[in-house]
C-alpha cells in the first residue's frame, strides 16, 4: 500500500516540472499533502496512536487545506496565474527531473541501510531535487514558495521513512512545516495588497 502511494507521490513530482499554471502547482501541493497523510498512516505502524492521529491531522489540515488556501489567496490578490517567467523551457526542466530520479535512485542505492526502505529514500531525494530545481529554474517568488514547500514534503517523507525508529523526527519535521509555512505565507499574505502588482516584479 505504501509503495502505491509513494509512486503516486513521485508522479506528482513529474507534473511539477511540466505544469505552467500556479493553480496547478497549488493543487499538486494539496494532493501531495493528502498522499503524505496516507503514507504516514500506512507506513508508521509502530508509532503510538495519539502521535499518529496528530501527524495525520497535521498533514491534512496544514498541508492539504491551509497552505493551498493561502496560496490560492495570494494568487487571487496578486493576479499571478501563469508561471510566465521560467529561466529555461519546461522541456529541459522535465529532462532534468528525469535525470534527478536516476541520480536519486543511485544515491539511495549507495546509502542503502537496513533501516530505511530504498523506495522511500529514492522518492524523498527525488522530491528534494524537484523542489530545488523549481526554485532554481523559476524567477517568480510564488514559485519559490512552492519549491520550498516541495522540499519540506521531501523532509517529511524522509522523517516518515525513519519514523518507526525515531518518531521524534516527524514531530520536528512538522514543527518546521508550521514555522516556515506560517512565516512565509503570513508575510506575503499580509504584505501584498490587491492594488499593487509587486509580486509580479519580485524576484529574489
Amino acid at each position, binding site marked *: 500500500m505504501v*509503495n*502505491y502511494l509513494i509512486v503516486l507521490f513521485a508522479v506528482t513530482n513529474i507534473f511539477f516540472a511540466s505544469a505552467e499554471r500556479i493553480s496547478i502547482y497549488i493543487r499538486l501541493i494539496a494532493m501531495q499533502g493528502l498522499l503524505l497523510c496516507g503514507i504516514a498512516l500506512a507506513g508508521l505502524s509502530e508509532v503510538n496512536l495519539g502521535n499518529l492521529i496528530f501527524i495525520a491531522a497535521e498533514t491534512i489540515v496544514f498541508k492539504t487545506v491551509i497552505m493551498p488556501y493561502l496560496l490560492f489567496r495570494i494568487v487571487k490578490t496578486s493576479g499571478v496565474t501563469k508561471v510566465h517567467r521560467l529561466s529555461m523551457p519546461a522541456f529541459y526542466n522535465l529532462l532534468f527531473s528525469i535525470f534527478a530520479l536516476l541520480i536519486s535512485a543511485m544515491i539511495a542505492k549507495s546509502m542503502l541501510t537496513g533501516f530505511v526502505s530504498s523506495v522511500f529514500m529514492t522518492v524523498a531525494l527525488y522530491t528534494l531535487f524537484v523542489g530545488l530545481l523549481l526554485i532554481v529554474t523559476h524567477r517568480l517568488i510564488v514559485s519559490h514558495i512552492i519549491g520550498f514547500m516541495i522540499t519540506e514534503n521531501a523532509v517529511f517523507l524522509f522523517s516518515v521513512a525513519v519514523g518507526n525508529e525515531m518518531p521524534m523526527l516527524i514531530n520536528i519535521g512538522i514543527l518546521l512545516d508550521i514555522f516556515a509555512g506560517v512565516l512565509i505565507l503570513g508575510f506575503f499574505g499580509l504584505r501584498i495588497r490587491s492594488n499593487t502588482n509587486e509580486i509580479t516584479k519580485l524576484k529574489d
Partner: protein
Amino acid sequence: MRLLGFLFLIVSALLIPGFILRIKSIAAGRKGPGIWQPYRDIAILFAKGQVFSNTSGLIFQIAPAINLSCIIAAAMLLPFGRYGSLISFDGDFVYFLYILALGRFFSIISALDTGSSFEGMGASREALFSMLAEPAFFILFAALAIVTGHTSFSGIFSEYTISGDHNILIMTLIGVFVLFQSSLVETCRVPVDDPKTHLELTMIHEVMILDNSGFDKALIHISTYLKQAIYGLLIYNLITPFKLNLVFQIIIFVLVQALYAITAGLIESFRARNKMNRNPKFILTISAVAWIAFVIILILKK
C-alpha cells in the same frame, strides 16, 4: 483461436473511428454523421483514381502500402488475452516498435518526396514527436518485462496478471495512462494534433498526406484506424485477468475499446489542441511517468 484476436482487432479498428465521431457529435449537440461514415468515405476513396504530382517519385507511390503492411505486421504480434498472438518470439516488443517506426519512416520520406515545404514541416514534426513518444513505450515494456521475466508480448501478458507480484496495480495504472497518452500521440489526436484542423501551419499528420489522393489516402486512413485498435488491444491485455473464459474476454474487450473511443471522443470535444511548442513537453511527460514506474520496479525487484 490465435486468428480470433487478430480478427477482433480488425473488427474494432472498423468501429472505433465511427464511434469517436458519434461521441464528438453527441457532445457538441449535433446530429452528426453515423457510425459508418468513415467507411463510406473510404469506399468513395477506393473508387477514385490517384493523382501523382510531377515532382514526386516511386517512394511517394509505395509508401502508403508499406505503412499499412508494417502496421498489419505489428498487429500480428499482439495476443488476445490467453489466446496467443499469430507471431511471437523473444523480444518481439522491440520488433513491434521498430516495424511501426519503419512504416512511419516511409510516410515521412514520402512527405519529403513531394517537395512541398508544408509537407516537409509536417514530416519534421512527426519525426520529432514520434522520437519523443517511443521511449515511453520502451520503458513501460522494459518494466513489464522485469515484472514478468518475459520479453515477448504473449509471455508478458500471460504472466502479468497471474505473477502474484504486489506491484502490478501500480504497473497497470501507469501502463494504461502511458498507453492511452501514447495512442493520442501516435494516432494524431487532440491534444497533440487535430485531425480536423484546416490550417497547414498547425497540422502534423494531416499536412503530410495533403498530396495523397484516392486509393493511397484510403490506405493511410485504414492505417490510422488500425493503430487506434492496436493501442486499445494493448490496454485490454494489460487489464484483463489471464484465466477468464472466452465470453468474458470478449465482453471486456468490447468494453475497453468502447471506453477508449469514448474517452478519446470526449477529450477531443472538451479539450483544446496544445500549442505546437508545448507538444514536446507533453510527450516527454508520458515518458517521465513510465520512467518512474521503471525505476521503482527496478528498486523493488532487487
